[in-house]
């Protein structure tokens, strides 16, 4: 398995790396349930969470993941204006990297933001916490860990993703992950919410939700951002959307006995998902949240040299250590 230098997207991960992170993540689940939620794994490490977009669960889970492993965690939330997005990203990235963090976690509305920073900052591990409609790898790892708790293996299963596929980094990352991990993806949306040629991922595309439900092992509901989408004519109203694509108890009965329900959050109750479903027995939504902390612990551990440290950061560290030992000799 290749050593992980950054976590930029599912695209860059090998299957073995995904398995490794899931196993490591699984081993961390218990830590957060303990009375004393602390391990010394990342003592002396610095993690910066740089969030250019609003986030509750992703930012909090990265923060808790770092703190429970004893890292020093700094959170920065910046509202990026539409025009200065790029510039502020470049300058902020360079500035923060100059403070020598071990890991820089970034969320940005700009697709490619994490890759952009990683190319710019050779000595800092960059984690993509969501970039535009491109990728959201930590969410996918969270989902896979959650599904493994119910299924042991995702291979051969069918996950049906419903909603605004066109603007969803979660859907995009799942489509990439499916090919690597051997599960099938069905997409359900009107054409206005589907990106062009998405079927080239090898997924099945449905416009009729009811037709897609039988045979699904998991119904994965995406958040609908009503403000954005009604004005751009992607659908006519919330009411019509809910009728056509909302997951209610009736639709859930069309699914098999063992079909699970997931949502990456935050939910719009009564829009893409009915409360009875979200809070019902099939829902794994809160497990996703809990596992999100564990998976992010695994990611931080792996990037901070849980295995062998990446060579290029080794170089910088060795240099620093030799300076320190020289100083020690002088003393």
């Amino acid at each position, binding site marked *: 398995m290749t050593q992980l230098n950054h976590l930029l997207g599912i695209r860059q991960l090998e299957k073995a790396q995904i398995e490794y992170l899931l196993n490591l993540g699984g081993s961390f689940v218990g830590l957060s349930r303990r009375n004393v939620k602390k391990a010394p794994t990342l003592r002396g490490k610095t993690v910066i969470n740089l969030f250019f977009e609003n986030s509750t669960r992703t930012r909090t889970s990265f923060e808790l993941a770092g703190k429970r492993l004893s890292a020093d965690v700094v959170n920065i939330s910046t509202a990026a204006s539409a025009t200065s*997005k*790029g*510039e502020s*990203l*470049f300058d902020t990235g360079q500035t923060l990297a100059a403070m020598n963090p071990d890991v820089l976690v970034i969320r*940005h509305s*700009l*697709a*490619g*933001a994490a*890759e*952009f920073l990683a190319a710019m900052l050779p000595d800092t591990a960059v984690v993509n916490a969501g*970039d*535009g*409609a*491109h*990728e959201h790898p930590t969410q996918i790892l969270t989902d896979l860990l959650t599904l493994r708790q119910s299924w042991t293996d995702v291979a051969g299963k069918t996950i049906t993703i419903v909603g605004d596929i066109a603007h969803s*980094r979660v859907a*995009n990352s799942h489509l990439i992950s499916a090919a690597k991990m051997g599960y099938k993806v069905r997409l359900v949306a009107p054409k206005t919410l589907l*990106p*062009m*040629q*998405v079927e*080239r991922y090898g997924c099945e595309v449905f416009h009729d939700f009811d037709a897609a439900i039988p045979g699904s092992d998991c119904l994965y509901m995406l958040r609908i951002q009503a403000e954005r989408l009604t004005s751009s004519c992607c659908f006519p109203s919330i009411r019509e959307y809910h009728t056509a694509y909302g997951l209610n108890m009736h639709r859930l009965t069309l699914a098999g006995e063992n079909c699970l329900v997931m949502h990456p959050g935050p939910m719009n109750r009564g829009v893409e998902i009915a409360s009875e479903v979200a809070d019902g027995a099939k829902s794994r939504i809160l497990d996703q949240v809990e596992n999100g902390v564990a998976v992010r612990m695994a990611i931080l551990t792996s990037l901070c040299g849980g295995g062998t440290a990446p060579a290029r950061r080794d170089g910088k560290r060795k240099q620093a250590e030799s300076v320190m030992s020289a100083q020690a000799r002088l003393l």
Partner: protein
Amino acid sequence: MPAYPVVKCMADFLIKGGHVIDPANGIDRSADVLVKHGSIAGVGKFKAGTEKTIDARGCIVCPGLVDMHVHLREPGQEWKEDIESGSRAAVAGGVTTMCCMPNTQPCLDHAGVIRQVIERANQIGLCNVHPVGAVTRNLDGKELTEMRELAGDGAVAFSDDGMPVWHGGVMRKALEYASSFGYLVIQHAEDLQLTEGGCVNEGWVSTQLGVAGIPSEGEDAMISRDIMLTQLADARYHVAHISTRGSVALVRQARGQGLKVSAEAAPHHFALTEDEVLGFNADAKMNPPLRTEEDRQAVIEGLRDGTIEVIATDHAPHHEDDKRCGLSCAAFGIVGLETMLPVSLGLVKQSVLSMPELIAKMACNPARLLNLDAGTLSEGAAADICIFDPEATWRLDRNKLQSRSKNTPWHGREMTGKVTHTVKGGRVVFEHGNIHA
């Protein structure tokens, strides 16, 4: 600003031993070219006399190239390019005549700015510069410019390039008015409602990258409308930087019907595809965007069958700050003057075009469309000459470009075909990598 002498002394010289290609005169043979008093004195066999001799053995000697679509950024954005740096880039690429688009600041919608650009270019004296005047004031698509006055001061065609003339009624009037005086209207064909927010070609690549796409139908729809208006107005219409399969088919059909419709293709649209932007490469972002392989092949077929008469660069310099900000935020455009010839030579290598056909598309064809005194080696014509070694290979280093901007997708790639000399008005302005200002 350095003081340039307006008249520079010119020695007579002989370009000896090259293979001369002058499509306008049907010349495609080994010959010498004699230059006297700044003009072509003849193409044939000449005994070396007292004049200086340029050894052109192994090289092709052709008319200085004509690039009818460049952005020189002066006035207004001189940190990206100015007329001097753009002229240096031009002659380094074998280009001796270029037409600069009007989207400067202020834009080329008044005679004063047109005159300023021409005077500045003449002062520099490296390359002939012909401005393209704006179709509408401020390029805002509402009121027509004083086209007759602009033409009188040197505008050779009209365009709102960078922006389409999007309003159907205004476009109709522009075509009617311009054609009353024989002027060519050049359209940046884009339906802005269809392309809004887009950043790369819409399709498999935009889907994988999670960025908004620019559908090819945005270009096709505008050209389709414009062709109907061209017929209505009995006008002359030119499609800038054609990039889609549908657009090439529309232009082919219109020409088949005898309409005065022409088109140009940019080297990147027949040499590269949308795959270049995978990995969020902002130096492969331009508008129209790089398209699919199918589109690329259609553009090549259009060049082959004559639907597309002209190759032009859409040379669009941008500062690194405008590119180094993530793909979605990055400015559209790449520099092209210094790569036009080697990239286009690929068409000869792939047997799409013969060498004379290729050179015609970069010399006499655009000159004919714009009624320019350029693009030929006719006796008595200004001695604007490009000499290049078609077999020389070299690696493109963006930092060695003459252009002030370095936004090229070809950085680090091997090029075949190298300009050795550029002669403008009988003066050697570029010689083995060096500019003679």
